[in-house]
Each structure stands twice: as C-alpha cells, then as structure tokens.
C-alpha cells in the first residue's frame, strides 16, 4: 500500500507513452501527451501527502493542525496551467499540419517530410 500511488504514476506514464508511440492520429497523440503529464500530478500530490493531514487552508482550523505539503500543490497548479498552454499550441500545429499535408497520421507525416 505504501507504494501504490507510485505504481499508479508508472502505469499512467506507461499508458500515455505507449499511446504516443503507436498513435495514428495527431489529436490522439496530443491527448496521450496530456495523459503522460497527468502522471506528474499524481506523483507530486503523492510525494507531499501526509497520512491523516488536512488541506493547507487555515480559514477555520488552527495553524497547528497537521496539513499536507503546500509546495507540491502549488507545483501541480503550475503543471495544469502549462499543460493547457502546451495543448493549445500543439492543437494549432496539428491544424496547420493537416492543412499542409492533408493528413493527421504522424506515421504518414514522417514519410512525407523526413
């Protein structure tokens, strides 16, 4: 049980990478990249978790209440925003690739332009 979240991380990472490698569609490939990145959320939150602790918000609890690490939570927030930005950029690349080559199959794109 101690390492279960990290096994989940490895699984999400592996599934996403496998999808990227075998993908036949650029949009599918972008979604696989999102899956890969999601593994980092689980990893970050898993690393900072403290058994039995609450969220680090001291609105109605005292400062001495045990709380989880706020730094990894802030990092996860950063991660989500960066992921959204990267996804938007990659989608626009996919649109232009389709316009230029008439296909969204990454393996066909490779043979079109080396």
């Amino acid at each position, binding site marked *: 049980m101690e390492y279960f979240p990290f096994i989940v991380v490895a699984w999400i990472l592996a599934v996403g990478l496998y999808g990227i490698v075998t993908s036949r569609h650029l949009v599918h490939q972008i979604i696989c990249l999102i899956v890969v990145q999601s593994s980092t959320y689980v990893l970050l939150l898993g690393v*900072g978790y403290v058994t039995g602790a609450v969220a680090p918000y001291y609105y109605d609890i005292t400062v001495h209440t045990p709380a989880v690490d706020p730094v990894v939570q802030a990092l996860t927030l950063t991660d989500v925003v960066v992921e959204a930005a990267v996804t938007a950029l990659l989608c626009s690349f996919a649109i232009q690739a389709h*316009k230029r080559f008439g296909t969204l199959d990454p393996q066909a794109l490779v043979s079109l332009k080396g």
Partner: protein
Amino acid sequence: MTPSQRRWIFLIAAAGLLAFFVWGLLDLPGFGRYPGPYGFIINRIALRQTLATGTVSAVNFDYRGFDTLGEEFILFTAAIGVSTVLRRLRGEREQQSAADEAADRDVPPTSSAVRMAALLFTGPLVVLGWWLTSHAQANPSGGFQGGVVLASALIMVYLAGEFLVFKRFSPVDVTDAVEAVGAGGFAAIGVAAVGMGLAFLTNYLSKGQYAGAVSSSGTIALISFFVGLEVAAAFILIVIELLEQTLLIRGGE
C-alpha cells in the same frame, strides 16, 4: 520504420525507464510520510507572515512568486505562439460571415435550449470567476482558476449567439491589451519592490488586519488579480484563434 518495429524499440526503452523509476522510488519516503521540512515550515509561518489563509496561494504568489512569473509567461508565450501559427497563410482568405462549410457535413442551427442555457450561465460565471480571482488569499482559488472561469463566461456568449457577436464582445486588440496588462502587472509589482530597495517580488503592501479577508495578504491578492486578467485574456485569445480557423478562414480556390 514499421509500427511493430516502433513498438519493440519502445518496449526496450520502456524497460529501461521502468528500471530507473523503481531505482528512484526506492529512496523515496513511502506514501503519506512526507518528511518536510520545507512544506511544514511554510504551513506554520505563512498565516503569520502574510495573513493569507490559503497557503497554496501564498506559495504561488509570494514564497515562490518568481516561479509563477515564469509560468505565467509560458502561458503568455503559448497564446502568442497559437496566434502566430494560426495566422492566415498565403492562399487563404477570410470570410465576412462565420459559417461551417465542411463539405460532407450539414450543421444544424444552435437550438434555443442551448442558447438559453448559455445566456443563463454567462452572468453566474462572471461572478464566480471574479470571486475566484479575488479570493486567492482565503481559499483554494486564485487567478489561474478564476481566469479560466472568466474566459468560459465569454465562450458562453459564443454559444448563445454566434462567433461574430463573441468577437465583438472580446475584440482581439482589447484581449491583447488585457493580456499584456496582466503579464506586465505581475512583473511590475516585482520590479517595484526592487525600486524600494527590497528583493524582487517582496510582499511590500500592508497585510491588512483580518486573516483571509479580501483586503489581507498584500501583494498576493494583487498578483492573483493580474494573473486572472492574463489567464482570461490568454484563453479567450486561444479560443478566438481556433474558432477563426474553423469558421472564417478558407483555403483559396
């Protein structure tokens, strides 16, 4: 390279990655045993130092504000990248009216139920986005979350009306200007601290009197506001660009 060759190369590389992952895992403290002390120290002092009850926002906009500045500029750059990549190419023309012209698709008009629902949601979304943007110091909210909700409020306008109405509500020059103010405001707050002889992004404003109040936490609340502007404008800009691609820009004949 055939697909099965690709798969084999991937499986070999994945085995190596797995070995490194397990190796890295061995020295990690187990789940639920975060050793500290960084996070615990911040949990203990953030409330006293900044009067922000939301420690995650205090980390984002104060203790590690410099990292967040970089993050905000990633979003800024991505929005610029999207509008650069999706510019009108040679041989493409822009239509005067928005229409979906995919050859083999018959697009039904938006139903009035969708229009009504979108209209009803616009107001509450603006309020919710504004509330999230202005309460970073109190609870799990902040500029990033609020900005995205504010952007979705304007996307509701697109759903309720049509693309050109949406574009009139959020013209590209205004959105560009708001985005620049948001990104620049964050940096300006940091530079102002340097002008006062303090370290970059020092929290120099009054922390207020009541923990978790909107007026508390000094620059945390202000930075969250600017981040909200930046995020909302960036997402609206990205959506406008993507919609223009589908609705307005056509290949030349």
